[in-house]
């Protein structure tokens, strides 16, 4: 029997390692010699971590246990591993099962299924077959044509056709060509690439090798965020094993094609998601973008032809060659083909990684798979595309998830972050949050981006402080247009999107802040006040917690907050067991 504990970063954060150790201990204590303890990457159902799969001797999945904290291990071992009876009440429910069954997994095909630290398991799933076929039996043009037929577009945000970039690099003369992977997943709220790196690193290596063959590149570089230490470790293990097996290195599969990969740890700069900035960073410089053309395909890393795709794009490639470009093109819509992985988070019941065919309506993703809004509150908006994207309001929840349809709303598909917001999320504050981010991350090269984002942030801060002025909305719109026009790279050109989309769909909230001194979502501190309602039992808990002594009242009688003294810290609201403190 085999016990597999999901150990991606998020699994480990919920205690998967402790659960794994406990299994080791109990199994050893009971001398169960036929039980193997193993690990896998993240299967994507983050809200159910830690997840434990028990496989029988034939490799069949006998049970999937969820939320397995160490104290539950003993019971599972006792009843299932020893007694042979799965513990029904700890197993994944049918409803939760739907979270997985409603998806279509291409990129995440192996995540959570295999041990990412053992190449044999990847090979057993058909891994490295595609690259072997490509290198030994196809020409460069044939490879590029398959990618063209598949309709694969860059999954990092811009959605540029992948075959076109490959072909451009192939056609560019150069003594050395490079294949770069952008694994600097900088969008706050996105973790698709981390999951692939941690759960199925070989699919990335295989995809890069195929791309290297198609374009004539012999060197690959993976630019990974330093915030992903586990991803770096697992990649290093995977590279080592691939070299041992002859899947990376000189003269692959007995041909004269050689390809190897190295890792470069990023140092934390969002702007390095932009191709030319990433190249500057690879060369050890400040990560500042430069004008295009020349495009990296002609002059990139060390002035040589360079192709840059992100993790998810490369991870699609082995699947395309194993199943054919047509099979990939059969998924999705006319313009947006294949699947897309989304990181579903925020005020959602079931957060996690979701891979769906392009064209599925947002509603299906949020309600059908994600189970709807936490605490059954009202769905207000979903933020897509991170700081370069925008907020799509509830009224557009039937929008199909394709590059074109999402662009029409003012947001972008982006790298796949999907942050769900409910009635308590203030949209002006959201815009402020993203501008705060882009202001900090602007590299400072273009005036409009450097100063424009700062001025926009100042206005938004003023509005959320309750000091908004008549004309602020119009000023924001004007600045937004200027920053978009005046910035050279994608960061600046898209930085105003969160502001523009929130003004477009939630103008009333801006107006509420400015003209009525009211935060519609009751979230901006300066614009709310706390009041005790008649639900109050007079227990005095809030009065004891209040740091400024603003609450008074007799025991067992309704208490009162003195608004002149109150500093709006919210401690009373937290401490009340009767929901008697309300935000006004």
């Amino acid at each position, binding site marked *: 029997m085999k016990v597999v504990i999901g150990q991606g970063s998020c699994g480990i954060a919920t205690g998967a390692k402790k659960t794994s150790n406990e299994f080791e201990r109990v199994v050893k204590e009971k001398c169960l010699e036929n039980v193997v303890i193993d690990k896998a990457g993240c299967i994507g159902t983050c809200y159910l971590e830690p997840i434990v799969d028990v496989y029988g001797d034939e490799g069949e999945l006998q049970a999937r246990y969820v939320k397995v904290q160490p104290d539950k291990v003993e019971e599972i071992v006792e009843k299932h591993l020893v007694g042979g009876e799965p513990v029904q009440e700890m197993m994944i429910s049918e409803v939760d099962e739907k979270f997985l069954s409603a998806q279509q997994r291409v990129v995440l095909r192996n995540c959570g299924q295999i041990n990412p630290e053992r190449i044999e398991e990847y090979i057993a799933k058909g891994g490295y077959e595609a690259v072997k076929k490509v290198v030994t039996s196809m020409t460069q043009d044939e490879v590029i044509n398959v990618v063209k037929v598949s309709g694969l577009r860059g999954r990092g945000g811009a959605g540029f056709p992948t075959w076109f970039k490959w072909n451009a690099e192939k056609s560019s003369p150069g003594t050395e060509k490079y294949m770069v992977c952008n694994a600097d997943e900088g969008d*706050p*709220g996105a973790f698709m690439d981390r999951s692939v790196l941690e759960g199925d690193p070989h699919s990335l290596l295989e995809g890069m090798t195929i791309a290297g063959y198609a374009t004539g590149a012999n060197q690959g570089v993976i630019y990974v965020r330093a915030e992903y*230490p586990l991803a770096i470790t697992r990649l290093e293990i995977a590279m080592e094993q691939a070299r041992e097996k002859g899947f990376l290195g000189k003269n692959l599969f007995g041909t004269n094609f050689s390809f190897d990969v190295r890792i470069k740890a990023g*140092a934390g700069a969002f702007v390095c998601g932009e191709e030319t900035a990433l190249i500057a960073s690879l060369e050890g410089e400040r990560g500042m973008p430069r004008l295009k053309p020349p495009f990296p395909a002609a002059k990139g890393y060390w002035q040589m032809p360079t192709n840059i795709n992100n993790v998810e794009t490369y991870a699609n490639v082995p699947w395309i060659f194993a199943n054919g470009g047509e099979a990939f093109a059969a998924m999705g819509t006319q313009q947006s083909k294949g699947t897309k992985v989304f990181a579903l988070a*925020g005020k959602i019941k079931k957060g996690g990684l979701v891979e769906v065919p392009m064209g599925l309506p947002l509603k299906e993703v949020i309600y059908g798979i994600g189970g709807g809004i936490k605490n059954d509150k009202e769905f207000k908006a979903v933020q897509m595309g991170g700081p370069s994207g925008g907020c799509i309001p509830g009224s557009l929840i039937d929008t199909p998830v394709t590059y074109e349809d999402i662009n029409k709303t003012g947001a972008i598909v982006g790298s796949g972050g999907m942050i769900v917001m409910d009635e308590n999320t203030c949209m002006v504050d959201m815009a402020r949050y993203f501008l705060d981010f882009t202001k900090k991350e602007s590299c400072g090269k273009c005036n409009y981006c450097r100063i424009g984002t700062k001025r926009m942030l100042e206005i938004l801060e003023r509005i959320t402080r309750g000091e908004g002025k008549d004309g602020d909305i119009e000023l924001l719109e004007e600045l937004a247009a200027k920053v978009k026009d005046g910035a050279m790279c994608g960061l600046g050109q898209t930085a105003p999107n969160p502001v523009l989309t929130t003004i477009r769909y939630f103008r009333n909230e801006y107006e509420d802040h400015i003209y009525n001194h009211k935060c519609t979502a009751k979230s901006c501190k300066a614009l709310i006040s706390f009041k005790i309602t008649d639900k109050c039992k007079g227990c005095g808990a809030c009065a004891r917690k209040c740091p400024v002594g603003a609450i008074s009242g007799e025991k067992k009688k309704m208490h009162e907050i003195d608004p002149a003294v109150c500093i709006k810290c919210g401690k009373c609201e937290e401490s009340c067991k009767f929901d008697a403190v309300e935000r006004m």
Partner: protein
Amino acid sequence: MKSKNTGCQCGGNSEANFTELAPVLEKYAQVPGSLITILQQAQDIYGYLSMDAINYISAKTGIKPAKIYGVATFYAQFRLQPIGKYLIMLCKGTACHVNGADMIEEAVCEHLGIKDGETTEDGLFTLNNVACLGCCSLAPVMMIKTADGEETFGNLTKDSVKKILDDYRAKEA
């Protein structure tokens, strides 16, 4: 990632003290484009980049100190000040923001008496707000980094975060 914090704030490192950095420079000093790698390894060894370290790297690589300083200040990862034994990386990503990361920051600041970027007087904790740790489904999240590795904590509340910090502090007693 291993990091060793010497805790030394005198800033008076002489060249003799860079023995651990010497092999790194031997390997990378002449490899073009290695500056960021060198700085990362220097920070891993000393916990931060002192001006002396920057000058030493400059002498060995031939890159001007001003340029090294420029690169070091461009990237969020590099620190020019020493840090505490436990580095708290508090996630301020979108999912964490929506789920109350500001509240968690408030609780940490209040509990330790420091602000973002500061270190407690006893040299134990440094607070760093970071953009995203990629554990969005467990928001709000923080990671605590020590010389032995790192631990991630999810679904934080004001109370749980205080308890986690107290547990770390108790280890020291």
